[in-house]
């Protein structure tokens, strides 16, 4: 138990990311407000970014810039950070696109509640 706890504590970034991921995913799946869904998506993606960056981190590592003065330093792995930058760009574009869609949905249905939108649409479909 103690060992497990200490392992969990040492790996706290991963634990945090797992918690965040669960929060995000459950928000997406359970909330019917479109904005909350979108926020859930963002939380979930942040969790994954966090996990990636934590994986690339070395405790006490140096900034990964080639430095002639200190050639032997252990560097932080820059690849995950670089990748996550791309990931953030992607998530920004998803968010922007989703916001645009929400605006359109609000214009045509007058609500941002997914359930009510579905009800209204089915009502239209059934006539």
């Amino acid at each position: 138990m103690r060992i497990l706890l200490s392992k969990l504590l040492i790996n706290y970034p991963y634990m945090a990311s797992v918690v965040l991921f669960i929060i995000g995913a459950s928000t997406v799946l359970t909330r019917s407000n479109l904005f909350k869904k979108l926020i859930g998506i963002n939380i979930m993606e942040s969790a994954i970014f966090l996990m990636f960056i934590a994986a690339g981190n070395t405790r006490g590592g140096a900034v990964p810039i080639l430095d002639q003065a200190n050639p032997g330093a252990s560097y932080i792995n820059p690849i995950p950070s670089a990748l996550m930058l791309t990931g953030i760009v992607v998530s920004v574009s998803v968010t922007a696109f989703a916001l645009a869609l929400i605006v359109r949905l609000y214009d045509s249905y007058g609500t941002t509640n997914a359930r009510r939108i579905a009800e209204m649409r089915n009502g239209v479909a059934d006539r």
Partner: protein
Amino acid sequence: MTAAIRANLPVFAVIAPLFVAFVLPTFARRTRLVEGLVIFVQAVGLWGTAYLARLVLAQGGLPIIYEVGGWSAPWGIELVVGNLGAFFLLVVAGVSLPVAIYASGNLAKEVEGARRRAWFYVLYLLLGGALAGMSITNDLFNVFVLVEVATLSCCGLVSASQEPSGAEAAFNYLILATLGSGMILGGIGFLYIVTGHLNMGFAARALATVWQDYPHVVWMAISFFMVGFGVKAAFFPLHIWLPDAHSVAPSPASAVLSGLAVKGYIICLMKVLFHVVGPELMQVFSLNRLLVLLGMVAILIGSILALGQDELKRRLAFSTVAQIGYIFLGMGLLNVKGMTGALFHIASHGIIKSALFLAAGAVITQTGKERVSELAGVGKKMPITMGVFTIASLGLVGIPLFSGFVGKWYMLLGSLGAGDYLAAAVIVAGSVLCAGYLFPVIRVAYFEPAPADDWQEPGVRQRLALILLAMGIFVLGTIPGPLLELALAAATDFLVFN
């Protein structure tokens, strides 16, 4: 110069559509120029991919490896045009050209405004480029980025029709697909943490040695990949977004979404499962049985749900769910025959479903009728459109001489080879059900009295596209030659040399 172009064909296959897509908005209002450029790019793309496929075949299956920026494998990004890459590139190029031709004729009736239409083409080309990239990239992170590009373009295409239901379907799709991308990214993260590589080949080699140390992490990674790609590829219990999204999109968009986009994700999943995880590990985690089981359920439930739809495009969308089940089933059989069947079904379903959606779109735009029960007599007024629909239906049902038969034949061989008689029965039952939901359309269209409305065939370009696709269905069914060879070689790559 030509030598330089030939040497760089793999990268051109990806960047040419992307860069053309980025330039299109600057002359968005000159519709003819936009359409011409799109068709030109797709035609050149088809030529280029055919050339690549010939090269790959001539090399006897040795992949063409392209190192972007001259950086070699573990550091740089590789594009590998192997059998699988060449195969899917050919499918993508072969389907997108007729669809682009069709779109140039029909889009004016489905999407209002020249600017919106130009943006439609932008998304269309982005999707094409992303799919091309997915088929040949050998880098896990590239897979993620391209999947995201494709997903966003798909959502854009879905929402291109002005109807509010389009926006709703696109939003639902976007949320679920982003959930899926999150899963995929998480899976990539786990694999990277365990193996330290993003290049598929290196990751596979590392994974083979370390997976026993981290079985749970690997298991998590695989399940994340399964769920992530499963959502995007509309694999059975995760298909809920597909019928809405694919039925409200403009018909050329539905065609590429159902015909190609979904397959792109499947190709990526195949690469991850077979090139990185490997068939042995899949068996360790019983993944193959899961795939076969869910594939069978998808075939049956998807077909039965399709039977109940009166809206033509929704019926076709549910049919896609069923046909995706075939591909997963073939994948899960874990033998070369079944895999070949699955790959060939990717090609044949791509072309058949595009033809079906385009024909349905032509019928809907020409008559304004969306329901099957309202289509009485369409066949007499629009013989070419409904003729193509009929050919495509026969193809999907799997009548010999049409492309669907070849895929199903190999899948049957595979399932019997694996001793899975239930799967064989389900494959055949799926065909019968497929006839059950497609033939009523044909019967209503041809054998019920036509109303007096003056319905006409769509324009020349739409007809040309439809005829091209119908010819494709027939050619794939009779002389599938290189495509079948590539599929067979790719399946062998997947299962034997790993």
